[in-house]
């Protein structure tokens, strides 16, 4: 049940791409790439919708990204009350694809769409794993 280590609250106990979380434990951010047609999936997928193949390889990402959009959540859902308000980002990953993440050490008024950011793995106090974006 490897996947449940991912996220502050995890709703997903396992997945065919649970290896993603093993890589997070090693401090690596990864996506998957279809060996047949070369399509890159960030976040990773186990199956290629383009060519119906499932022969995927793991690709390590640089963490380089740019800010696509953001919001600060004031009314939080269950399990996030202790950290509210918190700033959520959607970032465009340099290699392709997009992820949702947290702003780390950047106040909301310093965020600008299009700015360069760097993703890194972060271990939360209870051992759960996430990735966060900070100024490079």
């Amino acid at each position: 049940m490897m996947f449940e280590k991912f996220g502050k609250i995890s709703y997903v106990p396992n997945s065919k791409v649970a290896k993603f979380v093993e890589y997070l434990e090693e401090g690596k951010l990864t996506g998957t790439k279809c060996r047949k047609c070369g399509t890159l999936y960030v976040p990773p997928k186990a199956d290629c919708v383009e060519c119906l193949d499932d022969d995927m390889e793991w690709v390590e990402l640089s963490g380089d990204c740019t800010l696509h959009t953001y919001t600060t959540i004031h009314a939080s859902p269950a399990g996030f009350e202790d950290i509210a308000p918190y700033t959520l980002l959607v970032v465009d990953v340099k290699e392709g694809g997009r992820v949702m993440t947290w702003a780390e050490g950047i106040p909301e008024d310093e965020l600008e769409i299009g700015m360069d950011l760097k993703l890194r793995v972060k271990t939360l106090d209870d051992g759960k794993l996430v990735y966060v974006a900070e100024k490079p």
Partner: protein
Amino acid sequence: MKVAIVGIGHSKFGRRDDATVQELSWESFKEAMLDSDLRQKDIDATVIGSSPEYHKQRSIPGVIAEYLGMNSQPTYLTEAACGSGSAAIRTAYSLIKAGLHDVVAVVGIQKMLELSTPEILALMGRVGDVQWESGFGITFPGYYALFARRHMHNYGTTEEQLAKVAVKAHHYGAMNPKAMFQKEITLEKALGSRPVASPLKLFDCCANADGSACVILAKEDLARKITDTPVWIEGIASASAPISVIRREYVDRIPSAIIAAKEAYKQAGVGPDDIDVADVHDCFTIAEIMAYENLGFCEIGEGGKLIDEEQTYIGGKIPVNVDGGLKAKGHPVGATGVSMTTEIVKQLRGDAGKRQVDGAEIGLTHNVGGIGQYCFVQILKR
């Protein structure tokens, strides 16, 4: 063979602790029966539009069909989150077009306020992709806030323009006796409300509500016998988009809405300029701005200008949500799409009273499910 709406009904929306799911369904169903002068024996099936996760009662079509006196005709549920009601209408339409049934009743129903606050907060955390997004604490307003922020960046849309959408909603909600909120608000009040998910504030968000709405659909020849004022379904399109915002090309628009609108216009043989009145899915103020653009009432990026110029008020280029919209009516998820259709039917019959758009002949509904993973667009003609 065409399909018409021959009867409509609508419960009071709001906090309805006084009624069960089936009792609430009865309120709109009864109105639609009286409106069409039909009785249960004249109706071949019921289709229920609802989002089941809010109810204590499991599999609600069973208790609803029983309470409505609609046994032993077929009944079942359609689910497309906030688009469930329109999904039910599209299913009923298909049943008639396929020749399986002649007359079908659609009940859109939701009791959202029977859950406790902790239960609602837990549900709130699971609206998006629970594998890749929910673990960071994104919420429903949060998603629309992400859209709003990008829209503002791309096109210069302002928080004041968003607030003006809420002011308009409450202006018309004050004229709708079925609305949850029947009071006007000022721009200052909207702009000064507490932050929910920046840049969205409390008055940028619609409220959870309880309620039901009902429409009765009939095939062409029967429709003409049942009523002198049939409203014809000329376009009834639907499309989908990735639920994950991270897998969407654009976050400043609802891609499923653009596709569904194009298809609905094609089916009806009309364009955006032909629409006299529209009911759109304003779950958040930014959603209405995007709807103006995605439906072609203006170019992408010009939605803010449209509300600045009051073009979506009665008397403007295209009156939108003159029933108060989700914002003032309240948003009982499964009932919302059906509620939209009842409003447009009223408008096309000339029965909308104080909020009537004079001479309306062609109307449109735009019902978005979730954050745009589903969208339904109807075009109705009198």
